[in-house]
């Protein structure tokens, strides 16, 4: 396995200059010990954390009555019967574009909020942030705040260190298991699968996914933390294109803070900035950066440095807001002793995103409101593509799938047209001409019919149209299908 090197000049190393050894480009990760911040943003984050976790853990238990024989879980991705339930919305595999629309809406919403308020999604509501925050809270409960944690990590192993570490990882794993366990509730009836889980009756996939989610939660929130945001997540790269100098970001106001430096009580505030280099903003930072270096890729805009700085400013009797939500353009203007422009909400990109969201959202609502309750799918036999009957006519076979999305059985009228002299027969029915035929479809059913279409010899390769019509509601779904014959 050893690498070999070709020594072209045996005398190399004595005569010519020796190239310098390759520089190590790998930087080891430095463990970050975020200090606990106090203040309004910390409070907001606690509240958001509680709310988002509550939604995640409790949502599958919410019931929603849909009538007999249909799952009564408010949010359920039912793979077994291929349906997705979301409160009053019911999505069939045929409506999968609604899910795509939902994802597009989510992306646009993220764009909009980023243009307005920077990375508030990252800082407050992203699951990675929420669970990491929860894990740090557990860590703090067992090992103390920043200074105590650093001491403990550098101390040699002792009983004290061991039980604290063991306790922390145990609670982490319990939370991780709980998280993974709740995830599977979204895919099956929650009470059934929760009971089945402990009696061994749950499907194997439930155990698998719970296990996978347990591990990812434990490693991503416990061990990887900010590395997920910095190295694994594409969002920090994308957000550079979305935010601009008009967006509200967590900003160090260098116009007020510089020149910075430590200050004794006896010294005057003249000719210096308000930043006293107390390092509090760095110590509370969960991604280990210095916000005073400006907007950075790593920054998730959690605003904890605002809390830390405000607390210190209050202590030393200076106005708060040295670090605050502000726009780059305002800070630059103040630094140049100009009046900062007012924060403008109505900017072209904001209007554009809002219009896009309204447009797509409107389309989806319209689509949902007028969603067809019948649907027909035609599948042509590929083997054989056609047959010639003894009377010379050309016959093609089709499978017609009729979908009924209402809770009553219905009759659907099927007519087939497109070729002169065409006739069709439905297997199991007395029918062999070109007149429409009524076919029954069960409640919430997908019924298959086998249809044999024949046309006179010489019809060649043609298109036929298969129309399904509900006489009562007036709904119609028309499908085109190819009709094959010998090439002429």
């Amino acid at each position, binding site marked *: *396995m*050893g*690498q*070999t*090197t*070709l*020594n072209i000049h*045996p005398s*190399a*190393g004595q005569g010519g200059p*020796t*190239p310098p*050894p*390759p520089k190590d480009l790998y930087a080891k990760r430095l463990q970050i010990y975020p200090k606990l911040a106090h203040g309004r943003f910390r409070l907001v984050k606690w509240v958001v954390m509680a709310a988002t976790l509550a939604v995640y853990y409790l949502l599958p238990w919410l019931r929603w009555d849909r009538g007999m024989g249909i799952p009564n879980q408010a949010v359920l991705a039912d793979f077994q019967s291929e349906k997705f339930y979301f409160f009053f919305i019911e999505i069939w595999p045929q409506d999968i574009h609604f899910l795509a629309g939902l994802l597009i809406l989510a992306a646009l919403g993220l764009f909009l909020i980023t243009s307005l308020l920077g990375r508030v999604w990252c800082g407050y509501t992203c699951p990675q942030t929420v669970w990491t925050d929860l894990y740090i809270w557990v860590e703090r409960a067992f090992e103390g705040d920043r200074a105590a944690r650093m001491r403990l990590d550098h101390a040699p192993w002792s009983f004290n260190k061991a039980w604290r570490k063991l306790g922390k990882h145990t609670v982490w794993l319990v939370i991780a298991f709980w998280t993974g366990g709740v995830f599977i509730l979204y895919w099956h009836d929650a009470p059934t699968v929760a009971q089945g889980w402990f009696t061994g009756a749950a499907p194997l996939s439930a155990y698998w996914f719970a296990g996978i989610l347990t591990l990812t939660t434990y490693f991503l929130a416990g061990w990887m933390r900010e590395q997920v945001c910095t190295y694994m997540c594409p969002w920090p790269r994308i957000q550079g294109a979305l935010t601009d100098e008009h967006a509200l970001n967590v900003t160090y106001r260098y116009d007020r803070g510089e020149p910075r430096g430590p200050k004794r009580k006896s010294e005057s505030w003249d000719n210096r900035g308000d930043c006293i280099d107390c390092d509090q903003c760095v110590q509370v930072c969960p991604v280990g950066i210095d916000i005073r270096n400006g907007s950075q890729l790593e920054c998730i805009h959690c605003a904890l440095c605002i809390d830390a700085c405000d607390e210190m400013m209050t202590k030393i009797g200076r106005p708060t807001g040295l670090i605050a939500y502000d726009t780059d353009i305002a800070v630059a203007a103040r630094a140049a002793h100009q009046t900062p422009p007012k924060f403008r909400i109505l900017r072209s990109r904001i209007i554009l995103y809002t219009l896009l969201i309204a447009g797509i959202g409107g389309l989806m609502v319209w689509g949902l409101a007028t969603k067809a309750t019948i649907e027909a799918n035609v599948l042509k*036999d*590929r*083997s*054989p593509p056609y*047959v*010639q*009957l*003894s009377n010379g006519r050309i*016959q093609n*076979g089709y499978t017609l799938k009729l979908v009924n999305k209402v809770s009553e059985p219905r009759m659907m009228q099927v007519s087939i047209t497109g070729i002169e002299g065409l006739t069709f027969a439905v*297997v*199991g*029915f007395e029918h062999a001409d070109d007149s429409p035929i009524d076919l*029954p479809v069960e409640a919430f059913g997908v*019924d*298959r019919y*086998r249809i*044999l279409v024949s046309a006179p010899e010489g019809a060649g390769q043609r298109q036929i149209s298969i129309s399904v019509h509900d006489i009562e509601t007036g709904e119609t779904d028309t499908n085109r299908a190819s009709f094959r014959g010998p090439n002429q």
Partner: protein
Amino acid sequence: MANDIRDVDDHSGVETTGHSWDGIKELNNPLPRWWLFVWYGTIIWAAIYMIFMPALPALPGLGTNTTGLRNHSDRDLVAAAVADLKSARVAQSASLLEASLEEIETDRSLQQFALAMGESLFGDNCATCHGAGGRGAVGYPMLADDVWLWDGTLDGIEYTLRHGIRHEGDDATRFSMMPSFGRDGLLSSDQIDGLTHYVLRGSGQPHDMEAAANVADLYQAQCASCHGANGTGDRLQGAPNLTDQEWLFGGSEAAIYNTIYNARNSHMPAWQDRLDDASIKALAVYVHTLGGGE
């Protein structure tokens, strides 16, 4: 090279193993620690696996392979899964047995079940010869059209499925035998030539008028008993219609000559020995709905 001096490669700054061939030195880049541990892990895993799972082939005097503590056998698992499937289908299979073939085809739920079951059975057992969807092949009749050699009714198809065609060991099998007119010396080459043109004429293909006219009496004497006086065949004997465009073994001059000379008597096994009654009924309905059931 002295043992106590580390030899470091100038260019890369990596220690060498001390081996050198023609001035090519081998660098000492040991495997990463994690890789080694994963490797040790797989060795331990292999040992554990051999204890619990079948691992070693049969050694002389030891019978079959080792079964391991778990006594695992994929073959048994498949057998159990097949048994499960059968028991899951018992109720619907029973309803197939009770219903007549016509009832199965017209009852919605029985039809869906029979067609689904028939499709998979057809793929496993019949498609090898008759092709997917019954498209047929040379020597193997197309089942998707309305040309039937023996019988295209539901009961007729079921009978063919049960007893097969020219199946030895089934007394009720569909049977007929066309003589090998040329090979057994019953007819001369010229006579077969003439009959070939007679058949070409009957099916509306280009032919030699004179040759065909010369054998009109010969056809009536040798062929008409099965294929009919006007060549439209006889279903009772499985004798094909010679006047249509449907040719099991080809309709060209050479192919027809070959058929008369050698005779073609193809076979189909009797499936009642291999499939249960419900399967045969499902298959009969499936084949009947392929496109040309009568």
